[in-house]
């Protein structure tokens, strides 16, 4: 059976799609080559070998918390639903399946990365090289099964009520580390930048603090390294790697066998405590008010939107935490505009998430215009206003000289995010499972990465424009304020009209795309066909 599943896995690889896998392979090999190069430099004593340990710890972290364990929408994963129908004991099936999990880009690039241990061992003689050659597969075995077990546990948790928050926290941790993880390093190098002092503190980078390397070698991600470099406990480390790896392998088999025995359960959706009454929204027409009430309920109850909402709120708070523990507290108000950026990024796929419910808007006179403005009002309430308030609060707390600029940036970013998110939701829908088929966050809801990568620089630029104009015109506050007001007015008045027109023009094609889960009908070439 293992051979059959291996053959199936290879066919899935061969039949593609290859774009994402190719990108991951090239990017992973480049990063692995950098680690090996670092190891080569460290082996000559130019830098501390501990830097290789840091790199290996980060790499291991990607297995536990990042994309290496279970790439999103990986079509090469053999479907559990498909296997469930076979009259084969679940435990046996899971055991055979486990060996196919070793195939993939993640294990390959990690193997290359871990070969840096052999590079580190080379100057220490053949005995250490032999230990390193044994440590590489042992460490790989542990990382693979740690990552797969975390992914399988997360998949189970996503079907529970806590799934939304769990998925949001994981994503927010990754995003905040990606966007603000550099701040502690920068604050270490430029500790007095907030006072205008750009003098670079050259750290003794050749040596890392012993306490740090001790801590990292104590982690399972550092056991392979500590078997090679200190070489004081090589045998026991190798045994621990293999034992913990085997234990996690067994846990994964048990979780998978459990999943194969029973179909995914339906988590209870978040119901209202009492059937809600329509909210009287000030300053909005009754139709817009109706849409805003629907949107507010959907943001809090839809599993995919619920994850995005929590992610967008948590990420700037985590970023503020990271910045707050450094000497760069003057940079804290910038977390506010960042909140607007994340709010825009999570709101660019709302039409695809609502799916074929679009038919109601297309068959109700005047509904499209109300829908666009209703979505904008809700976005402003959930993301726009909180980002401006967060900026103002952080300004008040830190008395940062950047506070005023940050508030203007937050207002501009909020205006642009509010207007552009519905536009991208129409122009770049990432269609996945229809709204009626999605009950818990783990179900595929379309991958909006393209839209997110598009809106990110747009809103970021908008956040910076008032500051740039202010700086160019001699730091006069009223110029910055005027630029903010003009930008916000222009984008909020023009963009919704464009979105309404686009929905009138291509709404039925968008509905077709969501019904068929095929966005090819929206491409310009298809639009020209009868």
């Amino acid at each position, binding site marked *: 059976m293992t051979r059959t599943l291996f053959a199936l896995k290879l066919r899935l690889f061969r039949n593609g799609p290859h774009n994402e896998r190719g990108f991951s392979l090239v990017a992973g090999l480049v990063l692995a080559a950098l680690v090996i190069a670092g190891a080569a430099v460290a082996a000559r004593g130019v830098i501390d070998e501990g830097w290789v340990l840091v790199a290996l710890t980060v790499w291991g972290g990607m297995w536990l918390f990042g994309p290496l364990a279970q790439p999103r929408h990986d079509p090469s994963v053999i479907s559990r639903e498909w296997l469930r129908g076979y009259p084969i004991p679940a435990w046996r099936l899971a055991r055979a399946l486990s060996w196919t999990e070793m195939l993939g880009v993640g294990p390959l690039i990690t193997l290359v990365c871990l070969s840096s241990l052999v590079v580190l061992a080379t100057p220490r003689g053949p005995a250490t090289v032999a230990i390193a050659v044994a440590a590489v597969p042992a460490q790989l075995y542990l990382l693979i099964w740690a990552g797969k077990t975390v992914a399988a546990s997360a998949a189970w948790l996503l079907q529970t009520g806590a799934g939304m928050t769990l998925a949001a926290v994981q994503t927010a941790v990754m995003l905040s580390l990606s966007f603000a993880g550099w701040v502690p390093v920068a604050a270490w190098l430029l500790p007095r930048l907030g006072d205008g002092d750009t003098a670079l503190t050259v750290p003794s980078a050749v040596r890392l603090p012993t306490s740090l390397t001790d801590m990292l070698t104590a982690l399972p991600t550092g056991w392979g390294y500590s078997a090679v470099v200190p070489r004081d406990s090589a045998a026991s480390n190798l045994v621990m790697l293999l034992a913990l790896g085997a234990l996690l392998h067994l846990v994964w088999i048990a979780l998978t066998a459990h999943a194969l025995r029973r179909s995914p359960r339906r988590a209870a*959706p978040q*119901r*209202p*405590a*009492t*059937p*809600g*009454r*329509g909210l009287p929204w000030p300053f909005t027409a*009754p*139709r817009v*008010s*109706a*849409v805003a*009430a*629907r949107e507010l*309920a*959907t943001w809090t*109850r*839809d599993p995919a939107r619920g994850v995005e909402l929590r992610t967008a709120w948590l990420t700037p708070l985590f970023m503020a935490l990271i910045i707050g523990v450094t000497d760069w507290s003057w940079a804290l108000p910038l977390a506010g505009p960042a909140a607007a950026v994340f709010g825009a990024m999570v709101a660019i796929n709302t039409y695809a998430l*609502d*799916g*074929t*419910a679009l*038919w*109601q808007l*297309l*068959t*109700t*006179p*005047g*509904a499209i215009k*109300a829908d666009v403005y209703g979505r904008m009002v809700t976005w402003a309430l959930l993301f726009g206003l909180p980002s401006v308030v967060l900026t103002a609060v952080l300004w008040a707390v830190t008395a940062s000289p950047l506070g005023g600029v940050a508030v203007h940036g937050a207002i501009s970013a909020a205006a642009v995010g509010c207007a552009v998110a519905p536009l991208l939701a129409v122009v770049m829908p990432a269609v996945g499972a*229809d*709204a*009626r088929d*999605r*009950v818990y966050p783990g179900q595929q809801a379309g991958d909006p990465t393209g839209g997110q990568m598009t809106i990110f620089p747009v809103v970021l630029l908008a956040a910076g424009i008032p500051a740039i104009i202010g700086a160019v015109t001699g730091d006069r506050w009223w110029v910055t304020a005027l630029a903010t007001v003009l930008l916000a007015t222009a984008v909020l008045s023009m963009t919704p009209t464009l979105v309404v027109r686009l929905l009138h023009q291509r709404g*039925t094609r968008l*509905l*077709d795309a969501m*019904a068929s889960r095929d966005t090819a009908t929206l491409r310009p070439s298809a639009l020209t*066909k*009868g």
Partner: protein
Amino acid sequence: MIRADRWGNRRTVVDPSVPAVEVVELTQRFGPVLAVDRLSLSIPPGMFYGIVGPNGAGKTTTLTAVCGLREPTSGSIRIAGHDLRTDRDTALAQLGVMMDGLSLPERLTATELLRYSAGLRGLDDGWQARAGDLLEILGLDVVPRTLIVEYSTGMRKKINLALAMLHRPRVLVLDEPFEAIDPVSAHSIEQVLKQYVGAGGTVLLSSHIMDFVERNCRRVAVVAGGRVLVEGPVAEVTAGSTLNERFVELVGADPVRHLEWLG
């Protein structure tokens, strides 16, 4: 002429000489596939009208075009005299739509959905009494906190019908309203539709349930290959046999050879 009803709402009185739905030479192509081929229908107001046909006959495509959810390749559609292409909003305002297999705002309860729909259409206060009636008659008032996404197929059909009727449209367009639902739910829907037609409304529906069509519809169109094979009063179309037998005769059924291995 404008007249007030029991809720105090003003309604336009129907002109019986203007067809409720008029489809003229409707053609719909999907690339090389001709789904609907110069199909024409004229449905007078107050009519219970059925479209039957095999899978892929073009029924749903026709109804989708009638609802304005698909731009026809050629041909025209008028709803209560209003052209769907040139007078779209007025034409759509006459319609109540129930399409098969499409989502609703899934994270709302039935009451919230009807409130949302009333707000979206800008209905006056009378909608609340109508919503209460519809939820009660269709048996949806017993699950006030259940979200649409949790609904069974039958409950979905019922809330779709309530949604389609809330604004008291002149024409109901229903795609497969009885597909995959239990007899009790089907009975509820059937009774509501009878009342609607009895009060002067027009129903245009597609169905595979020949028994229902024969029992309730006054006229029927048998469609195959995107064209109308026969159209007329049900008694004329059936010509003495059942609609099911007549349907098989018109559409044709391939002989099924004996499967030796079953024996």
